[in-house]
Each structure stands twice: as C-alpha cells, then as structure tokens.
C-alpha cells in the first residue's frame, strides 16, 4: 500500500501573475532512481551481481523525451523573445549533478517552474479536483480561487483579464465578456505595471522584481506530485486526494480568508528567494524552512505521507490537523467476523481479551494530541500496559467496554497502537516471516542497552521451536516480557494461537451407519476395497449446522459423565471448529486451562486436531 508521493508544490496567482512559490523536497527523487539505489545497495556490495543493477526497467521513451524537450525548448527560445529565458538553462535534468544544481531554482522534473506555475492554474474555476499527468508523473490538487470581500469583482476580472491577454484573446467565456470589458479599464488603472504587459506578469518568478507592494493572492494551489506504478494510479490519487489534499487545502483556505496566511507566507518565501543572499539551494531551503511556517507544514506533511505515517500539524498556530492515508483499508473479500485471528489481513477485530501495544512512547503520543483531546483517551494512553486486557481497563477507567473499543480503534487508526494478545510467559511466539532484518544491528544494540541479560539472536534462535519459555527465563521474567513487547512492537515476532478442531467419522458426517458405509465403499467399485478408508474422518460441521447424527455422536462422549462435565462439554463444543483459539475460549467461558484440557481428553487422539497458527 505504499504511495509514491514525490513532492508537494505550492503555486499562487496574485495581482502580479502566477508564482511558483515553494516545493519540497529540494530535489525530488524519481522511482527509477530510488529503485536503482535500493537494488544496488541490496545486491551489489554482496554479490557484485552481473546484470541486475543495469537492468532496472526504465521507460524506453525516456531519453527521446529529453531530446524532444530540449529541441522544442531551443526552437522556442529563438521564436518567442517575449519569454525571458535564462540562457544557461538546460532541459535535461533530474539527476543530482552539479550543473543541475545551478538551474534547480527554476527547474523541476525537467520543466521550468514558471511553466509549471502556469500549468497548475486552471482556467476552469468550477474545477474542484485537479488531476494532470505528464508522462509518468501525476499532479493532483484542489485549486482554490479566492474572492476577497473588498474586491471580489475586481480580482475575478483581474484573473480572467490576465488569462485573456495570455491567451491572445482566444478563449473568453462569452458570458463574462461584457463584465470583463467593464473591469478592464478599472484594473488597468489600478495596477498599471502588472496589467500593461503580460511579460512582466509572467516572468515574476525568475526576475528580481521589487516586492514593496503587498501580494493580493487571488488563487492558490497545493499540488501533490505522484509517480504511481501501473494500475495504481486511480487508487493512489483517490487516497491522497480524499485524505490529505482536501483537508489540508480546506484548512489553508480558511486561514487565508481569516488572515491572509497563504498570501503572507508566499510573500515571505518569495522575498527570501530574492533577498536572502543564499548562495546555494540547500541554504535557501534551510532559510525558508526556518522562517516560514507554511514551508515547515509542507515539509512535515511530505515527510509523514511519504513515510506512511500520520502528520500532526498546527497550521498558523491556529488549526489543528491530523492527516494520514489510513492503514489497513478493508478489502472487498473480507470475511466479516467469521474468521477470528486475521488481525494482520484486514481491519483487526477487537476483542475484550486483547490489549493495545503502543507503537510510540506514551509521552510522544500525548504530545501530539490536541489540547482538547478526550480525557479518557489521555488516561487510556497513560495506563495502558501490554499485560492487561482491555476488559480489565473498564473498571480502571470507569467507562464502558464499548467506549474502550472505540478509543482503541481510534489509536489503531492513527497508527499509535496495534492489537495484540496479552503478553505472557506462556504464550508461543515465532519469528515473523516478514521481520525486517536490515535493522538487526540496531535491534541488537538496543537489546544490549536495555536488556543486558538477554541476547537478541539467542532469543530469536529459541523461537525456532514454539514452546513456552517459562523455565528458561525465570530469573529475568520482567525483562523478558519487556523484550517481547519490544519485539512485537517492531514486528520481529508473532504470536501463535492454538485452535481445536473435532473430527467425526466419515460415515457419521454422511448420516449413515457403519455397515451402510462399508457397503457403500464395497459397491463404489472403482478401486479395491480399502480398509483404511473405514477409519476415515471428516471435519465436524459448525454446531448450528450439525446433523442429528453428528450431535448424537458428540453426546455419546459424555454419556456416563457427571452433570458438570456434561454442561461444560455442551458449552465448549461450539468452539471446536477451528475458529476460536484457546485464549479466546478461556476468556469467553472464564475457564482455567485445566478445565479445557479435561474436556479435550474425552476425545481420543485421532478425533481432534490442535492447529498452531
């Protein structure tokens, strides 16, 4: 479910034309490059492999595009002197060499930022969702056209007017035409310099224009750049649009209308670019991030989304916003609740015997909560320990279990916690098949510092055979539990659960008696009579669907037993279908493990299976 966010751009339109204000990161890295680096670091050093690192599949048309691009550009330079071209500019780009560094300020993805600013300012004002793809890059955003109270009419006209000039009077809405004519003179009088020549208006970004006049922002657009792999485009665009773009844009719009936040920040960033005297792009980026809160917000959102975590931001010290692409989106083939134990496949099923494992320090989580956070949630985060069941927390927090579930779901949704079973020395753990071994040295180091008595590799080694570690770690019990917590938090180990399944003789399941079954086998004819088939079993039907014969067969097991055993048997038999693990059964029926094993021993060895998974 990785997303392919490459960069976030901010574009505005003001009384002085369109500006490409800011982008983060400084040099966006394309997927091909990332893949190449990953592959090289993965394979190269160890294997010195022959073909792989050179074989990264790139778009076959990549080089030609650059060529086209370059040639068009040069033609363009000759033909259109009205555009101010920086003579040093080069079209082919996007690798991090020195030459690019010099031009980077005005270049992104091989396009001049001025052109991008223009592209991201759509003519269609009613457009809510902007989505444009250029080759394998996709640009998504929600353009905001502002109508300030004072000069709504003028600003609107202003923009159209500029468009009109830019486009050589070709595309004016007929409806607006009259209105425009009226505003033309009006606007021209007020802002002569900007209005008179489109040249000055459009080369604002590259030229060092004086900034005495305050920017009147008429439009802003936060554009997210994605590079999704095949077949992922729609999903990624929707994910990021619904969850991030609409929310962030709404907040910025609110702040802009309230106190001209975007306008002021844009002005600040643009003036830093002109006047900071930064010698390199790195320096400029550093200064910008230090001075501008909007730039820091954009960075924070970018960092969080591209690393798949949640961004908690406070826009202009005023609007609290938590943004993320939700994890674990339910898939279509969800089986509902009928299979318990699939925590890792879909949205987890929360049960009272579960507990929450916080994925960050409680202090860190509390720090990111807004000031008006639910007090019960704050309390819950403070008292959570992975050795206490959610059901036990009700009494401590004095609230209903349903409320605890809701809070738990909230913490899971925001990636602050995950569901685990209560940690205990009797639990069976194995090393997770998806454990991330690249960080092994870090984990080993952590163990040395925090659990000096335990050796990580030895512990992992001991999980090769799942068995309770009761004796082995008697003297370090607390430390062992803490170590397990750490391992679970980092997805290094997973717990195994025991499921019980009862097997019935096949003829019972078929609803016939033993002799009839024997006859049937004899008459089937196709193969010689196989006596081993006589003892064949079948998996028992779910108790609510079980036939009369199956029930009778089951009841026979407790025919001559005391009343308590019979009632316990009847209570438990419904769980023996492989859908409920032992811990769940014990919790639901509030039993001791001893009681359960008493019932299980009623069956003979080949009449039940215990599955560990």
């Amino acid at each position, binding site marked *: 479910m990785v997303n392919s966010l490459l960069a976030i751009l901010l574009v505005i339109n003001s009384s002085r034309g369109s500006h490409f204000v800011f982008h983060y990161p400084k040099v966006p890295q394309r997927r091909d490059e990332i893949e190449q680096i990953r592959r090289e670091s993965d394979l190269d050093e160890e294997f010195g*492999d022959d073909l792989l690192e050179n074989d990264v599949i790139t778009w076959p048309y990549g080089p030609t595009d650059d060529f086209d691009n370059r040639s068009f550009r040069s033609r363009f330079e000759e033909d259109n002197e009205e555009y101010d071209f920086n003579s040093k500019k080069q079209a082919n780009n996007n690798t991090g060499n020195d030459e690019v560094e010099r031009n980077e300020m005005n270049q992104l993805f091989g396009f001049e930022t001025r052109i991008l600013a223009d592209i991201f300012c759509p003519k269609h004002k009613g457009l809510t969702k902007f*989505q444009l793809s250029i080759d394998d890059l996709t640009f998504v955003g929600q353009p905001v056209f502002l109508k300030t109270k004072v000069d709504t009419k003028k600003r609107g006209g202003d923009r159209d007017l500029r468009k009109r000039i830019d486009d050589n009077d*070709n595309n004016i809405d007929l409806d607006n035409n009259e209105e425009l004519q009226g505003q033309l003179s009006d606007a021209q009088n007020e802002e002569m310099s900007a209005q008179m020549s489109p040249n000055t208006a459009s080369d604002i970004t590259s030229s060092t224009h004086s900034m005495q006049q305050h920017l009147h922002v008429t439009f802003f657009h936060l554009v997210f750049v994605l590079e999704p*792999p095949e*077949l992922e485009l729609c999903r990624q665009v929707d994910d990021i649009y619904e969850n991030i773009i609409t929310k962030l844009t709404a907040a910025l719009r609110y702040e802009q209308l309230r106190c001209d936040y975007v306008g002021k920040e844009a002005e600040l960033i643009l003036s830093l670019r002109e006047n900071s005297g930064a010698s390199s792009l790195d320096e400029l980026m550093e200064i910008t991030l230090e001075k501008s809160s909007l730039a820091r917000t954009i960075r924070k959102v970018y960092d969080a989304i591209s690393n798949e975590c949640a961004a908690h931001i406070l826009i202009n010290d005023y609007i609290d916003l938590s943004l993320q692409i939700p994890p674990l989106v339910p898939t279509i083939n969800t089986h509902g609740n009928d299979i318990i134990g699939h925590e890792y496949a879909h949205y987890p099923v929360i049960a009272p015997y579960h507990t929450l494992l916080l994925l960050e320090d409680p202090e860190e989580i509390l720090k990111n909560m807004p000031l008006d956070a639910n007090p019960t949630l704050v309390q819950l985060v403070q008292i959570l320990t992975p050795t206490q069941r959610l059901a036990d927390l009700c009494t401590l927090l004095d609230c209903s279990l349903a409320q605890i579930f809701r809070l738990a779901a909230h913490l899971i949704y925001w990636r602050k916690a995950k569901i685990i079973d209560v940690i205990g020395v009797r639990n069976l753990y194995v090393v997770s098949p998806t454990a991330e071994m690249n960080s*092994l040295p870090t984990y080993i180091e952590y163990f040395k510092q925090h659990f000096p008595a335990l050796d990580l590799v030895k512990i992992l080694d001991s999980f*090769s055979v799942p068995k309770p570690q009761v004796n082995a770690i008697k003297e370090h019990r607390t430390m062992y539990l803490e170590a397990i917590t750490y391992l679970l938090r980092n997805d290094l180990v997973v717990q195994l659960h025991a499921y019980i399944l009862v097997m019935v003789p096949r003829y019972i399941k078929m609803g016939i008696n033993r002799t009839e079954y024997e006859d049937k086998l004899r008459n089937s004819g196709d193969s010689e009579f196989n006596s081993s088939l006589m003892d064949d079993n079948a998996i028992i039907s779910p108790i609510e669907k079980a036939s009369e014969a199956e029930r009778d067969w089951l009841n026979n097991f407790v025919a001559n037993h005391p009343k308590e055993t019979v009632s316990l048997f009847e209570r438990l038999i419904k769980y023996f279908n492989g859908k409920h693990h032992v811990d769940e059964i014990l919790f639901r029926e509030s039993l001791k493990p001893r009681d359960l094993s008493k019932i299980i021993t009623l069956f003979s060895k080949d009449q039940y299976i215990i*599955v560990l998974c």
Partner: protein
Amino acid sequence: MQDYAQQESDFQAGIPPRLISIFYSVFDPSKGPKVVFEVPEGSIISTEISTSIIDFDLISEYIIPKPQLCGHLVSICTESYKIMGFPVYIEGDKYDRNAFMFNLSFVFDRDADTSSYEPVVRKVARVLTSLETENEFLSNEATKDVMYNIIEQLLEDLNSYCECQIPINSANTINLKLFPTYRNPPPVYDYQVPICTVNLKALMDDNWDITMKKIATHINGIHHVKKIAEIADVDYGLARKCMEHLLYYGCVILVDIFQFSNVYAVKPDIMRIIEDETVQSECLSYVKKPDASPPSFAKLFSLYCSLKHGSTLKEWVQDNQVESLNIDIRRFISFGVIKGFLYRVHKYPILPEPHNQQSKLQPQLRKLLNGKHHYDEICTMEGCSARKLDETLAAEPEVKFVWR
C-alpha cells in the same frame, strides 16, 4: 504470497478500458486551439440540440499547450472524464506563425485505468508527426480531411478488437494493438522454483525468443531458476528476466526449493478451506499419485495441520507415515504454498558481531551470515547442499539460526 483471488482480479484489471471518444485538434493561426474532428459527433463540440460531454475551452490549455509540454504524454481529468493526448509541435517556415501544433486526444472515463493506451497514444502521435513532416498530411488541404476517417476507424476498432490497421498511403500504415497491462512482477531470485500454470509447450511457437524457448522446456516444478539456467546453458540474468516475463503473464508461480530438510507452517487462512469444497477436491486431485486412490480430505487437512515450526519435512513424513498414503509429497507441499495457507519457514544463519576474525569460514560466506540470507539463497549461490552448509557452519559455534 498473493492468493488466487487477488491474482484473478489483477488479471481482470488488465483489460483495456472503453474508449469513449477521440478528437483531433490543432492550433488555428487565427482562432487558436480548435477541435477539427471528433467521434462520436457532439462529444466535444456542442451543437444546438445537445451539449458536449467535455467543455473544450476549459481544457484547451492542456490539449494545445505551451510548447514546453509538447512531446509529452499529457492527461487531464475533468469532472467525469480523462483526456489523454500527446501534443505535437512541428516547426517550419511554411506554416503560419512558423509552427504547426496538433493533438489527437483519447477520452476515457475518469476512473479508467489507461496504462494500456499510453503506448498507443504515443505511437499514433509519432506516426502522424512523420506523416506531416514527410507529406504535409495534416496541413495540406487535399489530405487533411482523411483524419476524420482515421479517428472513426480508430475508435471503432480499438473498442471492438483491441487492435487496428489503417493504410494511409503507399508508404505508411497505422498499426496498433492494445496489450493488457498487469502489475509488475516482483523480482525473481535464483533460488526460486517456477511451476507452470499453463502448458507452455503448447503455447510456444517459432516466433518466441530463443532464450525463452530454451528455458521454458526445463520448467518442471522441481528445478530452481539457477539450475534451469545451467541446464539450458543460458545466462543467469537472462533466465531471471525470462521468469519475470512468464510471471508477468501469469504463466508460472514461484515456490521454494523442495527438500526434506525444509520446515513449513500453516497460516490462519487454512481454516477457510474447511468449508471450500472446490479447493478440497482440487487438492485431492492435485496431490494424489496417479492411479491410486487418495486419502480423504480430512486426512490431508490434518496432515497440513501437523506441519509446524521446529520439525522438518523428514520428521513429519516419519511421524505421520506419509509414505503409505498414496500422495505426492512435493505436490502436497506446493499446493499449500500456492494456495497461500502454508508457508516455508526459512533458516537464516546469523553470525553475531563482533565475531572471531580468525574464523575458519570463507570471508565471502561470513558476509552472508547477517540474517538477511536464508539457506536456499546461500546454497544456490555457493552451489552446495543444505547438509554441506550445515557441516560448514558447524565449524563456527557462534553461528545462530533464526527460523522465520
């Protein structure tokens, strides 16, 4: 490993989307961006009786864009449609304003996955560009109306047959074919074993790539990729590439190397097959030995459930007297792995740092003992058996094993 349902739906997704409309637009020296031809009629140009599905004025800046954007594949979305085009800018003194600009745009539903059309849109633009530069096909009064017939046939043929062939003149023909797009396959490793899902030999013909033909005949569900490359006398890298191709088209599934020293464990998904009778009968017919009556499914199920961490296949065979059951153990295991309810528990040797530098192990081997490489991988690389590796590593008592 992905389960079958996921793979099915992926292959569904590869089907090309429906093409709603095609329109051809140019930059008119006096009127600016202008739609010249469209099919079906009324989709872009509004008439008195109907309004178009797309308002051209609102998107014209992306259809006939600034020259910098020309030569790129550009898609723009409106409320409910996606318009994909490849704007072209041809410079020349013979044109008014010294340039000719055109774009042949394809219209789809907004949510359509258009990856399969991308090469087609690029190609048409390329062909038209060369037609224009060579014969002034698009700008000449005599031939420019042919465009209407071309886009009409394009729309019809691509929607109906996913391919199309349009003869233009004695020298030029537009040949197009839509290929379904699938998800890129994961990288293939030397130690993986391909199993065919289709009869490759029946599919093969003379036009196949020679390396692919050499390799395909050696896929038997037993040999790993490196071994296949050796038998077929093919470069290792090319063998992997071939496997990736076969994987992309769903012709093979990759599993682990079958050995009796392997350890397998079940996943919770195994409970799903209790009620799935199609999988059960599939399982029976897949794992039974030819001409022998298989055990009941319940027996197979309990055998699967007895595969667990900490016991090797060899021990499992002995404990359960599997030999007497008329089943093919290799197929029994690969069935579980392919269906996704069984997984291989790999053995990862780790030599903790800092270790004794005087170690008897080869430095190259020592480098691999970092917990990232399992036995199959190391054995394939070193060309030795698992038992041999066990013996080699026994020389270094500090080596620990993580099974996962």
